[in-house]
C-alpha cells in the first residue's frame, strides 16, 4: 500500500519535474507531424501527387516504376531551367485554365525535335497557341457511357493513338486542317477531334483520361505510356497565374534588398521566440483563491417584483401596498397592535385634517391598469408622508421624545420604537415608579 503510494507520488513529482521538457517534446512531435502532413498533401486537380479520384498519382507511380524521371515545374522559370538541363526530354504542358506566356509558346514553336504534349480540356491553351488563327475549339465531349468512346480512326498519324485505339473520357474536341485522332463528330468546319497536331506539339483535349479514376478505362493507359514513357526524363510543366510574367516584367522587391535582410529576419524571429520564453516563464505556479459563497441581498424581492410585473398583478400589488401602508400608519399614529382599518382611517384623517370619507375612498380605490397602480402607490406614499409630517409638528421634539403624552395611549407604540430609545424610556419609567 505504502509502496504504491510512494511510487505514485514519485511518478507524479517526476512528471512535475519534467513537465516542461515533456511538453516541449510533444509539441515538437506535433509540429513535425503537422509540417509533414501539410507538405505531403497535394489536392490540385490533375496533381502528380494527388491520390484522390481526379489526381495523377497512379500515372506518376507507373512512370516512376518504368524509370521515367518526372521533373515537375510549377513555374515557367523552373521549366526553362529544366529544358536547358535536359535537352532531349519530352515536355508536358498541363493547363487547368492558366496558359504559359508568349515567350514560352515561342519557345515551344522552336522546340526542335523535342516531343511536346499539350493537355487541356478548355480552349484557352489552344487560343494562346494560335492567337490570330480561326477558332479551333469545336465543343465539349461528354464523358461516361459506352457510346462516348472515340475510335482512333484510320487517318490518325500518331502511333500512340493508334495503339491506344479508343478513348472514353470527358474532354474537348478541336478542328484541325491536318489529320488528327479520336473524331467526335463531323460538320461543315471539318472533323472535331480530341487529339490534334499543332505547330507547338501534340494537343490532347482530355486530361481527365489519365486520372486515377479513368486511367484503367479504354486505351488510356496505353496512350499515357506512349505519350509520356518514351524517354528517361519527363518535364511536367503546369502554368500558374503569376508566372505568365517573365523576369523583365516583374522583378521581386526582395531583389532590391540587401543580402542580410533575410537572415536577420529569421534571427529576429528566433529572438521573438526567445522573448516569449523569457517573459512567459512564471516565477511560480498559479495560485488560486477559494472564494466564499455570497448571495446578493434583496434578490427574492427583486425576483418577486419582476414576477408581479410580468404577470401584471395589479390587484395583488395594490393590496400589498395598501396593507403595508395601513400597518405603518397604525404604527405612526400609535394605535396599538392590531387596530381596525376604520379607526386607522379616522385617526389619519384627524391628524392631517382631511375628510375621513375621502381618505376611505382613496384607500378603497382598486386600480385596474398599470398607470392607475402607479398613481395609487404615489397617493399612498404621499398620505404617509403627510401623516408623518403632521405627527412631527404635533410633537415638536419628534418621535424621540418620550413621554407624558404617550403614556396613556397603551403599550403598542413602545414596542415599535428602537431599542436605544426604549432603553432610556424604561430606565426613566422605572425610576419614576
Amino acid at each position, binding site marked *: 500500500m505504502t509502496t504504491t503510494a510512494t511510487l505514485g507520488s514519485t511518478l507524479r513529482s517526476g512528471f512535475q519535474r519534467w513537465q516542461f521538457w515533456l511538453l516541449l517534446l510533444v509539441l515538437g512531435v506535433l509540429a513535425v507531424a503537422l509540417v509533414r502532413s501539410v507538405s505531403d498533401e497535394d489536392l490540385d486537380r490533375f496533381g502528380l501527387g494527388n491520390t484522390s479520384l481526379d489526381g495523377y498519382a497512379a500515372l506518376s507511380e507507373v512512370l516512376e516504376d518504368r524509370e521515367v524521371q518526372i521533373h515537375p515545374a510549377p513555374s515557367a522559370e523552373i521549366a526553362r531551367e529544366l529544358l536547358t538541363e535536359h535537352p532531349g526530354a519530352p515536355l508536358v504542358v498541363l493547363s487547368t485554365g492558366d496558359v504559359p506566356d508568349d515567350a514560352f509558346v515561342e519557345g515551344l514553336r522552336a522546340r526542335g525535335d523535342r516531343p511536346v504534349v499539350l493537355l487541356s480540356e478548355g480552349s484557352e491553351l489552344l487560343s494562346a497557341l494560335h492567337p490570330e488563327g480561326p477558332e479551333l475549339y469545336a465543343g465539349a465531349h461528354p464523358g461516361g457511357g459506352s457510346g462516348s468512346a472515340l475510335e482512333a480512326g484510320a487517318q490518325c498519324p500518331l502511333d500512340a493513338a493508334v495503339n491506344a485505339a479508343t478513348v472514353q473520357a470527358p474532354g474537348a474536341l478541336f478542328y484541325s486542317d491536318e489529320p488528327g485522332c479520336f473524331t467526335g463528330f463531323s460538320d461543315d468546319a471539318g472533323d472535331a477531334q480530341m487529339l490534334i497536331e499543332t505547330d507547338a506539339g501534340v494537343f490532347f483535349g482530355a486530361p481527365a483520361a489519365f486520372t486515377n479514376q479513368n486511367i484503367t478505362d479504354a486505351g488510356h493507359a496505353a496512350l499515357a505510356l506512349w505519350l509520356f514513357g518514351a524517354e528517361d526524363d519527363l518535364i511536367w510543366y503546369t502554368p500558374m497565374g503569376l508566372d505568365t510574367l517573365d523576369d523583365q516584367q516583374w522583378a521581386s522587391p526582395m531583389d532590391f534588398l540587401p543580402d542580410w535582410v533575410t537572415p536577420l529576419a529569421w534571427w529576429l524571429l528566433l529572438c521573438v521566440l*526567445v522573448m516569449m520564453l523569457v517573459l512567459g516563464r512564471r516565477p511560480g*505556479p498559479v*495560485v488560486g483563491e477559494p472564494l466564499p459563497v455570497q448571495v446578493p441581498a434583496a434578490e427574492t*424581492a427583486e425576483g418577486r417584483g419582476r414576477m408581479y*410585473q410580468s404577470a401584471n398583478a395589479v390587484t395583488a400589488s395594490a393590496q*400589498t401596498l395598501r396593507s403595508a401602508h395601513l400597518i405603518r400608519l397604525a404604527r405612526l399614529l400609535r394605535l396599538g397592535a392590531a387596530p381596525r382599518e376604520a379607526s386607522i382611517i379616522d385617526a389619519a384623517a384627524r391628524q392631517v385634517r382631511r375628510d375621513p370619507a375621502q381618505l376611505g375612498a382613496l384607500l378603497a380605490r382598486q386600480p385596474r391598469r398599470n398607470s392607475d397602480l402607479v398613481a395609487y402607490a404615489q397617493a399612498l406614499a404621499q398620505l404617509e408622508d403627510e401623516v408623518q409630517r403632521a405627527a412631527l409638528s404635533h410633537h415638536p421634539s419628534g418621535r424621540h421624545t418620550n413621554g407624558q403624552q404617550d403614556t396613556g395611549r397603551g403599550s403598542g407604540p413602545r414596542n415599535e420604537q428602537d*431599542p436605544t430609545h426604549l432603553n432610556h424610556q*424604561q430606565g426613566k419609567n422605572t425610576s419614576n415608579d
Partner: protein
Amino acid sequence: MVLTRRFLYLALVLSAAVVVFPAPATLLGCALLLVLLAALDMVLAGSPRSVRVERVPTTDVRLGQPTTASTTVHHHGSRRLRGQVKDGWQPSAGARQQVSPIQLGPGSSSRIETARIETALRPTRRGDLHSEHLSLRSIGPLGLAGRQVTHRVRHTLRVLPPFHSRRHLPSKLQRLRELDGATAVQIRGAGHEFDSLRDYVRGDDVRSIDWRATARRQSSQGQHLVVRTWRPERDRRVILALDSSRTSAVRIEDEPRLDSGMEAALLLGALAAGAGDRVDYFSFDRGVSSQARSGMRGDLLHQMAEAMSTVEPRLVEADFSQLPGQIRMISSQRSLLVVLTSLDSGSLEEGLLPVLPALSQRHLVVLAAVRDPELDRRARARETTGEVYRAAAAERALIEKEALRRQLASLGVEVVEATPHQLPPQLADTYIRLKASGRL
C-alpha cells in the same frame, strides 16, 4: 529551465553578427553559441533543490492590519545560489512584493547557509490564508539562464474578524459602570446584590433610603440621608449562537450577514465579559461549526475571534432543532440566549419557531438580525411601473418580517433588527437594558 532578459539582449546583440556575415552558417553558429552558453549557465547554477524550506509560524492578525510572514531557507549545496524566490500567497493575503532576491554562499554537509525571507502582507479576507509553495529560481554565474524549483511547504496565516464595532465598546462599558453603582436599581426581587451605601441625591428613589444607616450617620451638621445602591447581578450566563447557514451568505450593503453577526457577537461578548458575565459562543449550521467560552484559558475576545475566523457561510439549511440540546450542554441555569440569524420567514418558521417555546421558557431569548436597507429604499421608489411592482414586492417582504416579529414577540422573544453598522451597538444597548431592568 529559466532564461533571463540578459539572454534575450545577448540574442539581440548577436543580430549584428548576422548583419555582418549574412549566411545560414552564421545563423546556425549564433544559435549554437546561445544554446551552449545557456546550457553552461544552467549547469553552473547552484541547485535550487539543495535547500530546505522552513516556514516560521505566523501570529494571528486582525483583518486590515499589516503583518509579515517569514520563511527560512537553509542551503546545503556546494555551489553558490543566486536568484529569486517567490512566496505563493493567495491573492487575498495581499502580499506587497511576492518576488524577492536571494543570495546564499556555498554550503556543505557541516556548514549550512541560511537566509530569511520576509513577505509583507495586508490581508483582505478573514480566515486561514495559505501559501502552498515557495518557488526558488537559481541563476547561473553568467546571468543568462538558470533553474527553477517549487518547494511545496505550506505556510498559514490566521486572519481574525476585524471587530470594527470595538469603537462602541468604551461608551457601552461606561454605561454599564453607571448602572453598576451610580444608579439605584429599583426592581426588587431575588438576585439583586447589595453593593454599597452612599449619600442621597435628589432624584433617588425614596424607597431605597436605608434608615438604619441614616440614623448612624446623624451628626451636628444636619440630616444625611443614606441610600442603598444595588448593582446588577454578576456571573450571569450569556450564550451567543451565530447562524452560519445559507441565510448568512446574503450580502447586505458591503458585508455578508455572517460578518455583521460576528461584529455584533464580538461587541456583546466583550461587553458581557466586562460586566462579569460568563460568555459562551458557538456558530452552527447543520452542527456546531466553531465554539469559544469564557471559562477557557486566555482572553475571551481573542478566543471568540479565533474561533470565528474560519467560519464561512455554508449553503445548507440551519438545523435549529439541535439548539436546545446544545444550550443544555453549555448551561443548565437561566441564561441570556442571543441568536444571531436572519428574519427570514422561510428558515425561521421551519426551523426556529418550533423550538422557541422550549427555549424561551428556560432562557431569555434575543433574536438579532440584520435589516436590509435596500428593501426600504425599494419600498419608497414609486416613479415608474417597474418600480411600483418592485416596491410592492419589497413591502410584501417587510410585512412578512413584521408578522414574524410580532409572532416572536408573542413568544417572549426580544427582536433586534438593524442595518449592518447599527446592529452591534443596538444589540449591546438591548443587553444593557435587560441588565438594568434585572431581567437577566
